[in-house]
């Protein structure tokens, strides 16, 4: 079994090397590995990184790991075999990704992490992450204000293996729990998924028809929740998301979802490529490994300025 899997993996690696070798000869390549582009947030990251790579004269090798650490490991093998000069990574698990990043490092290929942290320092060259905690506090401040500092609410939590799910939830509660008249009546994961959030919200509404607000760990879940609320004729429920997607922006403009928090995904990915380029050329980035980028509250006041995870 294990043998077959190895054989399969090498076959995958070889086939990708085959397709990449032509490009690798033409110019240096940077690998851009993110979760699935089904979530526009990750697509914005990949697009931002690829655009900056092109601007700086690199080819890019864009891959997705679908939040599967084994798949990510295989993609690292492919990238290493293809001789990429650097890897831009939004990783598939804070613990599980350390080994893959270290493997690349041992082969002389530096990794530049965006969006999600890994649990070990000194393995990646840069870890540029949104200040999820600060962002969650901004979202929670707005949520509490919209709720008039009181009432029943539900929380939708992200995927457990992703550190940001926990960080955001903690940031929300750090603020909300200080208001004793805010009562959380339900809390459940919807794994960042829109359809899952729709289903979860439906059953939450049945169990707790007196819900006044929903705070969600990301925008796709907020969209799913709002769709369920709309279907149930409960557009009065206050929904706040996180990410700053165009979908939620449009909903805010129509008076649907009330607020979200922008993570500067596009700029962050570009910054990672800029640092990779500097590192490739000089052996250092000149900045600390761990870098935090602040998030920005998006509501009806500034939603119009939001476009593809960046403020115009």
């Amino acid at each position, binding site marked *: 079994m294990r043998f077959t899997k190895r054989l399969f993996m090498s076959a995958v690696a070889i086939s990708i090397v085959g397709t990449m070798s032509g490009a690798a000869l033409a110019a240096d390549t940077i690998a851009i590995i993110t979760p699935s582009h089904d979530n526009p947030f990750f697509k914005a990251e990949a697009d931002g990184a690829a655009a900056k790579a092109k601007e700086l004269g690199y080819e890019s090798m864009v891959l997705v790991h679908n939040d599967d650490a084994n798949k990510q490991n295989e993609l690292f093998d492919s990238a290493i075999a293809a001789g990429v000069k650097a890897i831009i990574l939004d990783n598939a698990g804070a613990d599980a990704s350390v080994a893959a990043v270290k493997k690349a490092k041992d082969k002389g290929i530096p990794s530049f992490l965006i969006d999600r*942290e890994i649990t070990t320092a000194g393995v990646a060259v840069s870890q540029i*992450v949104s*200040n*999820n*905690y*600060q962002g969650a*506090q901004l979202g929670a*401040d707005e949520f509490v204000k919209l709720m008039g*500092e009181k009432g029943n609410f539900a929380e939708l939590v992200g995927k457990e293996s992703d*550190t940001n799910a926990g*960080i955001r939830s*903690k*940031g929300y509660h*750090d*603020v909300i729990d*200080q*208001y004793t008249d805010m009562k959380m009546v339900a809390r459940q994961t919807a794994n960042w998924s829109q359809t899952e959030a729709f289903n979860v919200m439906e059953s939450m509404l049945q169990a707790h028809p007196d819900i006044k607000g929903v705070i969600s760990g990301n925008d796709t879940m907020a969209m799913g929740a709002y769709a369920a609320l709309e279907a149930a004729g409960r557009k009065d429920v206050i929904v706040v998301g996180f990410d700053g997607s165009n979908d939620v922006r449009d909903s805010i403009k129509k008076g649907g979802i009330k607020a979200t928090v922008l993570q*500067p995904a596009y*700029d962050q990915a570009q*910054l990672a490529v800029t640092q990779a380029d500097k590192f490739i050329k000089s052996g250092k980035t000149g900045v*600390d*490994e*761990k*870098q*935090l*980028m*602040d998030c*920005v509250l998006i509501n009806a006041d500034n939603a119009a300025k939001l476009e593809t995870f960046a*403020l115009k």
Partner: protein
Amino acid sequence: MAWVPCALRPLFLSSISVRIMRMKLLMAVGMTAFVSLAGCKLVKTGNAEGQAPVAGEAGDEARIAALLQETYDAKLVPLLRSKATDLVTLRTELAKSLDEAGKALGVRAGGAGGSWIFPVKASGKIIEENRQSKAGTASVDIDGDGQADATLQLGTVVKGTALRDVAPSVYDFSKFRDQIEFAKLGRALNDKAVSALPAAGSLQGKTVTFVGATSLRSATEKPLIVPVVVEIAP
């Protein structure tokens, strides 16, 4: 304050027999000391009992309490007092350019696109003390026109992390385990700051002098200040 390698702490704390302790010590000496200490970071002894806070998230509270005790009065407040720009001066500079004012008088938070954090001070009249919200505030008129020029955060809920981010020389993110530990510091600083403010209801209509920090994203927004000192004029 002593620094104790965490590998040695179990020896102080455990009730295992002396023989096992000796064995461990012998092993530590016999093998290279580096091996036994590898992966351990130095942990500060935190409290009166001389025990260091445990590593990881479980020790955050004790570690941050110790850090606050060591830095708040000794470093942060003096730094704010010495670097604070008078709000009237700041307003003049902001009118020229947010970024130029930031570079000269503030600290950049969260990289490009983030806000600027300024240490600030001023004297003015409290025209409204709002304790309706748990995030209590006081509006201050600084230039005497009867309009609020700045807002002081009074707690108990305090928004933002200006106090933490205004002093990267004291609180450096890269020295913290992760965002969570760093965030807990932000919260602890806010709680500490408002715990020392004048009692609720005592500020309305009074003239006060204050020192604090504020985070600004635009040149025109009214500064929302976390004060570390609010003195009521006699």
